[in-house]
């Protein structure tokens, strides 16, 4: 019973959150590649704001939201009961241990692979942390490469989120409504014989290519 209530409450909060983010950002959603279907895929996106996950999630068709799981840090999402509720019931996160010493049997790539095998899609931020610099994109961590190696038949979809950090810059409490754009690019996979650095560079370029052209102020 308790479980059922938590599930329903989580779903309700999810709908409310998606509605709220639509109201604040009126996201313009552009599919450069194939729109999502039944198949599992991995979305990899730039990370400039805490709302990134919610925005990608809200940009997907409602039916697919519950099956699209953000990959997130266990130490953050297990810290207290509220976060735990949001992490498991609202966002259905795939939690991974950042600290290698705390990892038990399962390694992060294994966790992600299991989730993909179960039919879920994943949202990951390959920069590994929030980008607060002026640079458009930080150096990728190797996670994306490992998942591409472990599940070579899964489509990897680059995502570029534009303007979200204007809605709520770091350190601000109140968001302002501004229009955001979210670009979903052509899917990619690990090419035969491609080494790690070439692959990560190609993935990073695919994301940067999605950026809207800057107009001189």
């Amino acid at each position: 019973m308790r479980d059922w209530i938590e599930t329903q409450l989580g779903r309700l909060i999810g709908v409310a959150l998606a509605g709220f983010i639509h109201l604040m950002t009126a996201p313009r959603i552009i599919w450069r590649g194939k729109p999502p279907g039944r198949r599992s895929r991995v979305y990899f996106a730039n990370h400039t704001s805490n709302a990134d996950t919610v925005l990608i999630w809200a940009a997907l068709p409602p039916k697919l939201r519950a099956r699209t799981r953000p990959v997130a840090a266990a130490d953050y999402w297990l810290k207290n009961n509220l976060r735990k509720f949001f992490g498991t019931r609202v966002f259905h996160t795939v939690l991974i241990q950042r600290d290698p010493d705390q990892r038990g049997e399962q390694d992060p790539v294994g966790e992600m692979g299991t989730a993909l095998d179960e039919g879920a899609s994943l949202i990951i931020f390959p920069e590994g942390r929030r980008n607060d610099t002026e640079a458009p994109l930080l150096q990728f961590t190797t996670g994306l490469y490992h998942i591409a190696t472990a599940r070579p038949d899964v489509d990897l979809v680059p995502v570029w989120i534009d303007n979200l950090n204007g809605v709520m810059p770091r350190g601000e409490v109140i968001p302002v409504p501004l229009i955001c754009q979210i670009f979903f690019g052509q899917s990619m996979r690990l090419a035969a014989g491609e080494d790690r650095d070439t692959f990560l560079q190609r993935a990073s370029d695919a994301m940067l290519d999605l950026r809207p052209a800057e107009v001189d102020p």
Partner: protein
Amino acid sequence: MTDMGWRIWPEIAWVVTMLIVLTLIVSALAERDGNDDLNPVVDNLSARLRGWWIMLGLLGLVLAVGPMAVVVLFVFVSMGALREFLTLTTRSKADHWAFVASFFVVLPVHYVTIGANWYGFYTVFIPVYAFLILPMLSVLRGRTDRFLSRVAETQWALMIAVYCLSHIPALLFLDITDFAGGNFLLMVFLVLVVQGGDVLQHFWSACAGRHPIAPIISQSRTWEGFGGGVISAGVLAVLLSWLPPFGIIGAFLIGCAIAGIGGMGRMVMMAIKQDRGVQDWGHMSDGQGGFVDRLDSIIFAAPVFFHLTRFFWQTMAG
């Protein structure tokens, strides 16, 4: 339905009939063209017609609930428009407070006083208090890069998306002698003449256009189209002169004025879009742009229409 709803039902019936006829004509035209060959003029017209139907639904809302419903509705329209506008302005992190204040203080306060019909306040609140205090909020954050651009563009956003736009619902509260209760007909008149003027300028440009007004901004907007459109909008206003209390000549002159302001205002907004490298302000529905795209000419015409009406028909009579 309120009393005034019953009193003016013949006028409403006329507008509804006109819209039904227009809709039938346009859908017949669209039918003839088929789906593969899209005709931009018909497309443009049907987009406008949708806008007019929405406007009509809005008027139904006034009749059913009262003017407050329209004020509340316009709070959301202004929010949408301001969101679109501020997305394109020069800004930095240091403007965050100014933005928060614009959205969550200036806009609501302005609309509350519109609803309270406190003319002396809402006329000066944005141009005096908001314009002076918002830059102070930005200066407190201590960043001076592109400061003047940031401040000025935020001010303009408020001017267009809140101040000018709010003069549409403000029409409902004008106190005009011998015209009590029919104020929303002023709104109908404004929308039909300005939007009709847009279509007519389009039409005249297509038929007789030779000299573009500003070739860089638009090849299709010509002086011939502008002149012909403004005069025929005046004629349209005369045909609609049973809506407002202006008389025949008054309706013609005001019709020309608001169609002219609206048409030129549209070009101003096109220039901004062009500078910022965007096709549309927003994307409310597919291919129709956002709030600002649909309302650009009316946004410019509304305050002028409001003040002309107020000056000649309120203060003279009172």
